């Protein structure tokens, strides 16, 4: 569904991504792992158009999406959540999701229709799916950290993507909250058949949910394959040991 080929990106002479390669098959959960500073977030930003690649290709559903504007990539069917909480702080929980749903239906430029009654059912469906219905009229900044993180992911689902990118979905979470996210990812993948690409530091989580893993080290893809192959890969072990030792 998603193919990344020989992607390169430099910032002021620093080569953040040297040679990233990745393929995400439809319906699978794929994880990108790598030490801090390996370029995982940069890779995500290149895929979603928030950064412009210097060279290489990103293809989605065999269509070239390299360096398209982020809003265009979204309408192709790529949704994403962010590592840091990235929600609409002055809106209610309901409105946060509704904004995404409205944009999905391309109604965001309608001037004379009350937004209040627009696409309510579809928005509530997403809220129910994520257990956020009880908070729907709350200001989203009043939510707990964990709930905000769930909302962060829920917003991305509001635009009904075919491919969902999750950038460290459990960063800063307690073990309980992490379990909630793991269950969520499994449910989205198994029940809704969503294709998911995620980055994560928590290796237990990665080996629990991912069907395929890509290892990024200093901006380069050093391995890609099934979890058990990655676990036994010499170059991966070196990369991690080199980093920590």
């Amino acid at each position, binding site marked *: 569904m998603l193919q990344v080929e020989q992607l390169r990106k430099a910032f002021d002479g620093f080569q953040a991504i040297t040679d990233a390669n990745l393929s995400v098959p439809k319906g699978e959960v794929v994880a990108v792992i790598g030490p801090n500073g390996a370029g995982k977030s940069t890779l995500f930003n290149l895929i979603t158009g928030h950064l412009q690649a210097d060279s290489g290709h990103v293809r989605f559903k065999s269509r070239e999406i390299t360096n398209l504007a*982020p809003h265009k990539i979204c309408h192709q069917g790529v949704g994403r959540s*962010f590592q840091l909480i990235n929600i609409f702080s002055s809106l209610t929980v309901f409105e946060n999701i509704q*904004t995404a749903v409205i944009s*999905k239906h391309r109604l965001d*430029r309608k001037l*004379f229709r009350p937004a*209040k009654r627009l696409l309510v*059912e579809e928005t509530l469906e997403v809220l129910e799916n994520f257990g956020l219905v009880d908070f729907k009229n709350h200001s989203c900044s009043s939510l707990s950290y964990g709930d905000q993180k769930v909302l962060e992911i829920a917003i991305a689902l509001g635009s009904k993507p075919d491919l969902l990118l999750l950038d460290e979905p459990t960063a800063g979470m307690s073990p309980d909250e992490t379990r909630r996210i793991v269950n969520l990812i499994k449910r989205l993948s198994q029940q809704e058949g969503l294709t998911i690409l995620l980055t994560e530091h928590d290796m237990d989580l990665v080996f629990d949910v991912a069907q395929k893993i890509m290892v990024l080290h200093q901006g380069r893809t050093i391995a890609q394959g099934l979890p058990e192959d990655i676990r036994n890969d010499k170059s991966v072990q070196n990369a991690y040991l080199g980093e920590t030792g």
Partner: protein
Amino acid sequence: MSANNSSTLKMPQGKFRAYLGLGLSATGILILLAMPTLISQYYVYLLATVFTTALLATSLNLVLGYGGLLHLHHGVFYGVGAYTVAIIMTKTSWPFAVAVVLGPLVAALIALVIGWFCVRLRGLYFGMLTLALGQLVWAIIYRWNALTNGDNGIHAIPVPEFLTSVNSVYYTTLIILCLSLVILYLISKSPFGLTLLATRDNPMRSESLGIHVRRHRLTAFVIAGFFAGLAGVLFVLVERSVAPSLLSWNKSAEILIMCLMGGLTVFMGPTLGAVILVFLSMFVGLYTEYWLLVLGVLLLILVLFLPQGILGYFIKSNDKKGGV
């Protein structure tokens, strides 16, 4: 049906507030309709000025409050609207109706051109560019003697017979203000308005949800320019003259302060700010020439003690009492 069920929890309060707002507006409009019979002609004229200014400030707030864009030179579109009418009525034989329609449209067109450049920038840089391009328009109007009469402005602009009395001008500005406020309110509650708030809160996230942030901001900018131009048309009705000071930087700062004073987050905030500032400048003007000094002190108090603006402050404290 679930649309109704969806908001049952907090609805009583929300509904109460909506009815309260409706009732207050209705009473207010009735009082305003009776005003000319109750007060002197001078105050009727002053109120018409308030209505014009209120429309101007509310139009700015679409960009400033809802869009979160630091628009520093809104007076330009006000001036362009006013000058369009003035020039058509004095230099051509076109009918008055054409001038009235073209005023806001030309202002919107200038907003489209200026906005097209500005929405490419963010934050303070956006603000500096509105200022720079706005000053350019000011300079053209100030210097183009043949067309605009330069520094002297254009005076004794002819208007139709039925718009020559103070009372008829009063009612015209009142009606146009009410209609415009309704339209702007509907826009603020529309999908466009909600999305505009989203782009203000978090432009990067908005992009990831498929929102064309630049285009959205440009649209808001043009709508604001249109209504500022309409306010400019009203200004010509009230004053029958125009001068380059309409597009001055001072004027734009005043509009900005009105929005801040009333509250950026409340729809009627700028209107309240306009009421306060127009009356205050009039009364202060009776006693001293140093209006700007008073304005400065006021701004200081505002920023220090009421950063949310007056209406913003009251609504916030009311919400706290309600336990939301």
